[in-house]
């Protein structure tokens, strides 16, 4: 399990407390929900790739996400952005 640390000022905490019943719950939900949507996207791309190339699909969401990265069906946003930047500079 990874831990993502976000540092906010006391004022920002007060502002978040104004916006949400529980600041921790709001933060958790924002992160988990974005991860869930990304996971659905990754698996959809993996399924398309496996069907098109007659590759056995891994079982379970964790294995499927790992398989998508292993097969280079997807890559990290940092890698794709950096690669695109390098391509533009050439």
């Amino acid at each position, binding site marked *: 399990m990874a831990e993502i640390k976000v540092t906010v000022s006391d004022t920002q905490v007060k502002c978040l407390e104004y*916006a*949400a*019943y*529980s600041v921790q719950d*709001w933060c958790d*939900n924002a992160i988990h*929900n974005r991860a*869930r*949507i990304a996971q*659905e996207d990754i698996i959809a791309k993996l399924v398309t790739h496996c069907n098109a190339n007659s590759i056995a699909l891994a079982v379970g969401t964790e294995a499927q996400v790992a398989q998508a990265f292993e097969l280079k069906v997807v890559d990290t946003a940092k890698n794709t952005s950096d690669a695109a930047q390098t391509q533009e500079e050439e």
Partner: protein
Amino acid sequence: MSSKIKVDTIENVAGSGNVSLGSGHNLVVPGDLTVDTSTLKVDSSNNRVGIGIASPTHPLSVNGQIKSTGSNGETVQLQTSSQYTGISFIGSDGTRDAIIDYDHTGGVMGIKAHTSAHRISMTTGGYTERLGISADGYVTKPNQPYFAAHMTGNSVYQSRSANHVFDFNTAIYNVGSHFDTSNHRFVAPVDGKYLFTVSFITNDSTPTARITFYVNGASQVNSLQFGISGSNTGGGGATGTSAIIQLSASDYVDVRSQAGTSQFYEDNHSSFTGILLA
């Protein structure tokens, strides 16, 4: 002083290589100029220039792609003295299929599918359509966040206390996947105004439940309880409510009873829907 030298061909003294004018001397061509048959053609009688075309039909005719580069952001500027300035898209049959223009008098930027059966499509993320206007003027936004969910699994009237998040665990539609069936929350992908509706079949013998839309876990936003509504008595009665809620990205909405105990039929008789309006 004027003089003429008449020759058929001018060559470099070495027999090959460039022929150059001396520094400070200009080349004046009063008639046509042809470079490599059609690479560059100047039609002096019609005042036209062709690039890649031997017989230019317009002041500048180009057969091929045009690429403009430079450090200025405005790589192409269009200016006319008439009301409209624009670009036309002509099909291979000569038909004007589409126009992008600006009406300087009316102050209107126009994107026009000129041919009657054609449509306008705006895409992002490659060639995925995000906004379409049909030939009949129907505006569609295929990726507009939208969901419609109901409950499955319980199939009977359930007694729920206040603050219980109603278990909309099945999404029939979930465009963009912004509704999470595991925690029954819709999470706003962008800042905007969202319309939500919810309806239940209720069997409250004592109508104490007051359903409302909770935003970020709170029953009130700026003292406003979105869509709060009482529930009816008797088996088969119905209750429902709706609200348009301004949300920021990552804000979430779910449905709860703000007070009292609910007795709702937790099956596909109850629904929770939402859509981004603007």
